[in-house]
């Protein structure tokens, strides 16, 4: 069902229920911990009027654990609401403003695509927020030690930032206007800059936040400049208007420059080489759950932006044979995946290793996007090409969804180690199999899934991506009957490179297993890990999802396909 509405028109709140849940959560977090018996005296009288704010706080609202519980609750509710909108079919809604001259400006659009991405964002943030309840341990309010004060007082700030991050991400998913998308991107980015450096008492935390902020803001600035160039050229930043502009005037130098600048902005978010330099530092300095959010939700946001912008440009009518960015993106993909894997081989900090593996995964995704650009849009190949584009976008969305399961899961396991000051060296994982066999097996399953070993979901996603690329590469050749190997489109070799790269990657994923199962524990790390019930719950959720989406991928593929369909509807 299609419908349009004005901002804050009829049914606006029910349509955007997940987002409003987050807004309510934001206000709740601001207000709830400050409720107290504060009174003010009416001037010139002795009457004290209670205004319930400040003063002496009650037993419940002064509990430092409260913000974590609230935030987790609101994220899970938002996730549930977003999931609910899939039941009985998606109600595709466009929010638009119509001015006096009947010019329509689209602002937001709720469809399968944006909702699926919101599921990714809320899912990752919910897991991170649940896990952070342990990572930022809250003691009782009577704890007067320095660490206790630190931890208890900043609880609220942490979760508020998580929620604003979630709000920014939903705007990115919903936006129908490049400028709006950028605002959402910045809202989420600024939240993550602070989140990365949240552990300000450690040196790494501050350094990581600083680096991430500087590189990130430069990338944003370049992207914003590209945006303004695009606006000068097309006179609008609406997706529809841009698509039409590309169709009518084809490719000109000005938008080309603008696009490459935008690529820098989004390339930083997906940590594509050569814009990935801040990522390993940021991941290593941030706490486990935050690093997990950076590697999953924040990356999904970047891919979302890339997809939106590149697909506008690659619209069938706007291309003659191949999209203009084809070769550039292909080279970028090849460099990114190889660089990421080679760098990961040499890193001994598991978080840096995961960061580089995240770079490698970005390379795989870029390869898939490249394949979309390679599609042949001559009339004879139209249907096949449409199918291939659908397959590729489906694979990408699937990949981003399952990434939340095993990549975030791996970071959560590390965060459990962090609570005993480990997790920064591979050696601190040593002997985990002896200390906590189930945890070690879980971590190993996450590693195997990252490496793409069946029957785990990581294999399924890699398999779908390879399938998409191969399908795209074969399109030109399956029509006229005779197929010559040397005539295959060169994106097939990207699939080949991807396959070789995932073989290289096995080396460093296995090493984690070897250390856990083979090495002796470090001195002082011989007993079980600290309990941390909420992190463990989150890890189990990740584990179940990792295995389930590998074995029973049917439903998720259908969901991702509906999302891909919604995105490609613009063509």
């Amino acid at each position, binding site marked *: 069902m299609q419908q349009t509405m004005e901002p804050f028109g009829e049914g606006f709140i029910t349509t955007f229920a997940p987002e409003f849940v987050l807004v309510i959560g934001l206000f709740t977090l601001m207000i709830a911990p400050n409720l107290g018996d504060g009174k003010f005296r009416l001037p010139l009288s002795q009457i004290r009027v209670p205004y319930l704010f400040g003063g002496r706080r009650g037993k419940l609202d002064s509990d430092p654990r409260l913000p974590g519980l609230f935030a987790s609750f609101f994220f899970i509710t938002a996730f549930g609401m977003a999931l609910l909108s899939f039941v009985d079919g998606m109600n595709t809604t466009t929010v638009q403003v119509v001015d006096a001259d009947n010019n329509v400006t689209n602002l937001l659009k709720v469809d399968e695509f944006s909702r699926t991405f919101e599921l990714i964002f809320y899912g990752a943030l919910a897991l991170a927020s649940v896990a952070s309840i342990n990572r930022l341990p809250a003691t009782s309010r009577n704890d007067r030690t320095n660490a206790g004060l630190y931890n208890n007082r900043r609880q609220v700030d942490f979760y508020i930032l998580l929620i604003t991050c979630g709000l920014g991400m939903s705007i990115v998913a919903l936006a129908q206007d490049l400028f709006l998308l950028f605002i959402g991107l910045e809202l989420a980015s600024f939240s993550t800059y602070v989140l990365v450096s949240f552990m300000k008492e450690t040196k790494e935390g501050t350094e990581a936040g600083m680096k991430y902020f500087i590189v990130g803001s430069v990338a944003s600035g370049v992207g914003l400049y590209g945006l303004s160039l695009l606006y000068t050229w097309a006179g609008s930043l609406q997706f529809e208007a841009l698509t039409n502009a590309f169709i009518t005037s084809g490719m000109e130098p000005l938008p080309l420059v603008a696009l490459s600048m935008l690529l820098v902005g989004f390339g930083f978010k997906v940590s594509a080489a050569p814009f990935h330099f801040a990522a390993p530092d940021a991941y290593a300095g941030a706490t486990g759950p935050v690093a997990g959010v950076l590697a999953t939700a924040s990356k999904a946001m970047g891919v979302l932006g890339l997809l939106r912008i590149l697909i506008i440009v690659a619209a069938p009518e706007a291309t003659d044979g191949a999209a203009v960015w084809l070769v550039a993106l292909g080279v970028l993909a090849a460099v990114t995946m190889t660089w990421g894997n080679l760098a990961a081989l040499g890193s001994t900090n598991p978080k840096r290793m995961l960061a580089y593996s995240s770079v490698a995964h970005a390379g795989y995704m870029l390869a898939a996007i490249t394949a979309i650009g390679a599609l042949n849009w001559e009339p004879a190949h139209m249907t096949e090409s449409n199918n291939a584009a659908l397959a590729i976008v489906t694979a990408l969305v699937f990949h981003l969804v399952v990434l939340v399961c095993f990549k975030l899961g791996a970071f959560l396991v590390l965060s459990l180690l962090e609570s005993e000051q480990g997790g920064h060296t591979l050696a601190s994982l040593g002997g985990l199999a002896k200390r906590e066999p189930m945890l070690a097996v879980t971590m190993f399953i996450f590693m195997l899934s990252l490496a793409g070993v069946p029957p785990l979901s990581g294999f399924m996603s890699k398999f779908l991506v390879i399938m998409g690329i191969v399908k795209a590469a074969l399109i030109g050749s399956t029509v006229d*009957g005779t197929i010559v190997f040397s005539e295959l489109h060169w994106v097939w070799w990207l699939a080949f490179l991807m396959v070789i790269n995932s073989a290289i990657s096995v080396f460093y994923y296995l090493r984690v297993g070897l250390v856990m199962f083979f090495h002796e524990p470090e001195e002082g790390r011989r007993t079980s890990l600290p309990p941390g019930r909420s992190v463990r719950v989150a890890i189990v959720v990740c584990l179940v999802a990792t295995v389930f989406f590998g074995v029973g991928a049917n439903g998720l593929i259908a969901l991702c396909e509906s999302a891909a369909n919604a995105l490609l509807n613009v063509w």
Partner: protein
Amino acid sequence: MMDWISIPLVGFPLVASLALLAFVGNASPAARAKIGPTVRWVTLAVSLAMLAITTAMFFGSLDGDSMLDWDTMAFGDFNFEFRYMWIEMLGIHWSVGMDALSFPMVWLTTFLLPVTIVATWNEKNAAVYFPLVLMMGGALIGVFVALDLFMFYVFWELTLIPMFFLILKWGGKDRKYASQKFFIYTFTASVVMLLGLVTLYFMQPENLSYAGDWTGRTFDIPTLIAHSQAANAGGAWFLGESMQKALFIMLMIGFLVKLPSVPFHTWLPDAHVQAPTGGSMLLAGVMLKMGAYGMFRLPLAMFPHAAHHFQLWLLVFGMVSLVWGAIVCLGQTNLKKMVAYSSVSHMGVIMIGIATMQPLGWAAALFMMFAHGIISPMLFAVCGAFKHHYHSMEIGAMRGMAKHSPWLATSMMFAWMASLGLPLLAGFVAELMMFLALWHFLAAEGWSVLWMVGPAFVLAITAAYYLWSMQRTIFEGGEKTQPPESLHGAPVPDIADSEKLAMLIMAVFTILFGVMPWIALNMMNGWTVGIFNSLLIPILGGA
């Protein structure tokens, strides 16, 4: 009626092992040591139940009348065929079935599982070891019964995980290096194969049977073979000449590394030397055969033109493996390494059998897969017992074993003799058939007779390295035996009762299939004649 039986055959060991592992993982370390014996008995019971099922299948008593006779099945027929939709959009099915190509391998796996469990009865950390062995068995059976490319690949990779852990946790000194090398080597090869499979998937025409409702392509192996048969007919190349060659090479990379053939064999000696006895037995007995099985199942059946085109290469690979493996054996001082290289040499026999493109040669290769699957576990069981009791693997570390360890000496002699191809033992049949097939092929095609020099030469070398190593361990030493130094003067023990039992079982079956090879050979022959008559001869003409 009983079509679903292949599913528990795969699923039961996997589920049972996972359940056992989960149970054991939750137990405290103290309790884990205590429940070891129970876990061992449970795994033995499961594996015996599986052996009972497959044996009943062999005698045809499972399915009453509707089961096809293994010996006379037509090519393309399957017993216990079962399909269940798994991922609808891509056309991925849980699709299983057995024909005369896969059934001997399935039976062999179920036969080796209990034998391995018995032979390594006293392995340390039993509560985890035995479930892993069971998981290995389930994954291996999965490879053999899979009739869906996706499932085939899933199980193909799944076998790596338990084997990786078996080597890593129970292996020798360099187990870390060996397990990594094993994993990376075979993983690399199989991802190349995966790319080949995906390319094949999209190259096929749309809307064959069991196609995905979104992609319109099928992963179904029988459907693909039937289609390739039609497409290959009359001199045409299925998928076109260059694509067929390219895909043939990509699939063969996966299978040649697994087999392994020289020059891709270097992971095997490392893995074998470091692996625990049970791991080696399954690795040599069944896992290597996955490579040969895969060749028969996919590239040889689907790309016969390419196979014919690369015939010389196949022969060269086989010949080099055969000769090189044997020569390297001569120089080994490590008992297990020698046996590992002899495996490489025997896999060369399989490759040569395939390269002849003769029904006899293929039947020889199939029988070699089977015979080597019984003999090589015995070789490794002997090596394992040697290591277990003497704490050394050096040939010549001890002399005169016949005096103080008659059981081990006899088993060793028997296994060695079986492996070098003594008549009336299973290995001989396969080697003889390979010789005849090669001879026939060379004569028929007018190739140089000099190709025969390699196998003849190897016969002599094989006898030499086996007899020499036997002479140095079993006999020499005269009246006073020389106990191994690694025992530090402790009394020299003979093998344990469980090991005796396992040796005896393997020896009995080696003799059984040596004296009455037709029990297995008939069905293999039926399959080969079937594939040649219905597929290869119409396509390649003559042969």
